[in-house]
């Protein structure tokens, strides 16, 4: 197990500076604001005295690196700030909405995998044939259809024309599981449809490459069942890239939830972000961006760990 622990330690070592860099970047973006934060907060109550007082209160008159350290200190204590519109702390707001975004991302990823992986396997097994060509063409075309386009198409089809599914709305799972799932169908489908082509293309090409390797010829020479050769001998080495793609997808999914939650009115973190932009609630904005970015870094870290589980060569430091 020692090589595994060493691998883990090395990865954690890289994690820290990345998180610090992310926090710095977030802080710098927030300080880009032309004009004055205090001004914006006070709105029409902004007299020169009030502004000066608030600035002093918020520490805005201090040098930037000092402010950064101060802010970072607060963050590490768990204090990401408080919305001056709603009075809620950032952490409260995020915690409330995290389950919604998480549910959306989870369903979307499941749909994307459930569609992409089987198609990739079938296409790789029959590569060059008519089905393969058709599916590859379709996947390519779908790459030009972004989430917001699929969204309006699905809404038009299922909500406006057929009235099968609701276009917007949300009920917590704990209150009404069926209702909750109904509200999630279209959004998850939208996001899943945007992600499956990427998954399918990558897994397919990896499997085609794997199927040309010598070890597949030997597996055939051993007289193993074709299904075993496909699913064990070819799929396993190819799944590494699949994990990479799933990892990269998380960033895309996060961006996607912003769009999808806004379109379908799901009270998730994405919508929180967009709402904060709309109301110029800049404290919330800064805090939410920090949370999302850190979450992204951590998820990538988890994906890295999964690598080691799948590919023993990486575990032993060989690959």
């Amino acid at each position, binding site marked *: 197990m020692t090589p595994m622990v060493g691998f883990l330690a090395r990865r954690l070592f890289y994690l820290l500076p990345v998180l610090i860099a992310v926090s710095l970047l977030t802080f710098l973006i927030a300080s880009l604001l032309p004009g004055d934060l205090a001004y914006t907060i006070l709105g029409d109550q902004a007299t020169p005295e009030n502004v000066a007082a608030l600035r002093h209160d918020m520490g805005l008159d201090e040098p930037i690196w000092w402010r950064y350290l101060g802010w970072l200190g607060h963050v590490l204590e768990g204090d990401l700030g408080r919305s001056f519109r709603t009075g809620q702390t950032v952490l409260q707001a995020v915690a409330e909405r995290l389950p919604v975004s998480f549910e959306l991302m989870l369903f979307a990823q499941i749909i994307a995998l459930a569609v992409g992986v089987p198609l990739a396997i079938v296409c790789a097994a029959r590569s060059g044939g008519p089905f393969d060509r058709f599916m590859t063409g379709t996947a390519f075309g779908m790459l030009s259809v972004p989430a917001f386009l699929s969204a309006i198409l699905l809404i038009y089809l299922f909500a406006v024309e057929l009235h099968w599914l609701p276009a917007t709305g949300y009920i917590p799972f704990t209150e009404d599981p069926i209702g909750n799932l109904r509200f999630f169908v279209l959004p998850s489908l939208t996001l899943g449809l945007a992600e499956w082509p990427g998954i399918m293309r990558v897994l397919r090409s990896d499997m085609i490459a794997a199927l040309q*390797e*010598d*070890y597949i*010829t*030997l*597996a*055939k*020479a*051993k*007289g*193993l*069942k074709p299904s*075993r050769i496909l699913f*064990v*001998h070819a799929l*396993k*080495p190819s799944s590494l890239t699949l994990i990479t793609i799933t990892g990269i997808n998380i960033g895309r999914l996060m961006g996607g939830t912003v769009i999808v939650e806004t379109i379908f009115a799901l009270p998730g973190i994405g919508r929180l972000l967009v709402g904060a932009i709309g109301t110029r609630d800049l404290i919330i904005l800064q805090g939410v961006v920090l949370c999302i970015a850190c979450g992204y870094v951590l998820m990538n870290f988890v994906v890295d760990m999964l690598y080691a589980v*799948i*590919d*023993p*060569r990486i575990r*032993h430091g*060989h690959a």
Partner: protein
Amino acid sequence: MNAQALLSVENAAVDLPTARGNLRAVDSVDLTLAPGKTLGIVGESGCGKTMLSRAILQLLPKKAKLSGRVMFDGQDLTRLSPDALRKLRARSLAVVFQDPMTSLNPVLTIGTQLTETLQEHLELDTATATKRAVELLVAVGIPAPEQRLTQYPHQLSGGMRQRVAIAIALSCEPKLLIADEPTTALDVTIQAQILDLLAREQRRRHMAMIIITHDLGVVAGRTDEVAVMYAGRVVECAPTPVLFKNMHMPYTEALLAAIPKLDTPPHTALPAISGRPPDPTRPMKGCSFAPRCRYADGRCQGEKPRLERAATAAHQYACFHPIKLAAGAGA
């Protein structure tokens, strides 16, 4: 042909369509192999020996076309259904490839790669299969076999990996084992060990074996018969001692001369064969070796020599100017 032959290849030809035209990788090859005997197939790279082995194993690339018959144990392999063929594998036909680093799956354990064959063909349960796997590893000379089962190919040395590949091939007691350049990817010091292991197991199990190599030295003393291939054809074939003592093909003579020997004076230039093998997409009218042969003449360039029998019935050669080598030049 021979009713006793385990393997009988009849007029086999392999055609590969390529961008530059049709490539005849194997051209009218006839071979027979009796049960328990060893055949060595020798030739330069590109002479078609690997394609021939793939043709016998029915593992040709999708685009390749095979004509002729491959009779194995009374059945024509070219006419078998995929399912019947699959069942035949491992239990009748097994193979060891050249590079165990690429022929073993890097993400599956040694144990899995051993037991899956056992479980597929012998229908053993996991416990029995694991026990058999350990026995096999012991038989091929791998120390600490139980540990190896959970290890991955990259954790073993090259020689050990090839031993594992051999263990896999032997696992279901095949009637014929084809070893395609089994030692080419290994260190020189390991080569003899692996060849000895193959020979030993072959004798023990009364298995027929085909060793494919570019090195005449490998087949000397380890095979019953040798077939020499050049440009897709068998140009000479004879029982091994007969070939080494009485070789008739200039090409075989040249191959033998190209083997470094212990008794040559130091710094002697190695007599390599000048020129290169012909382009397989452009079939030649005359003998394929003629451009590089020092005995060649007009007839050789105009007409293709056919295989004919020599003084000993089992010895065949295809040449218009056969040489008679009386002195034995053992490797």
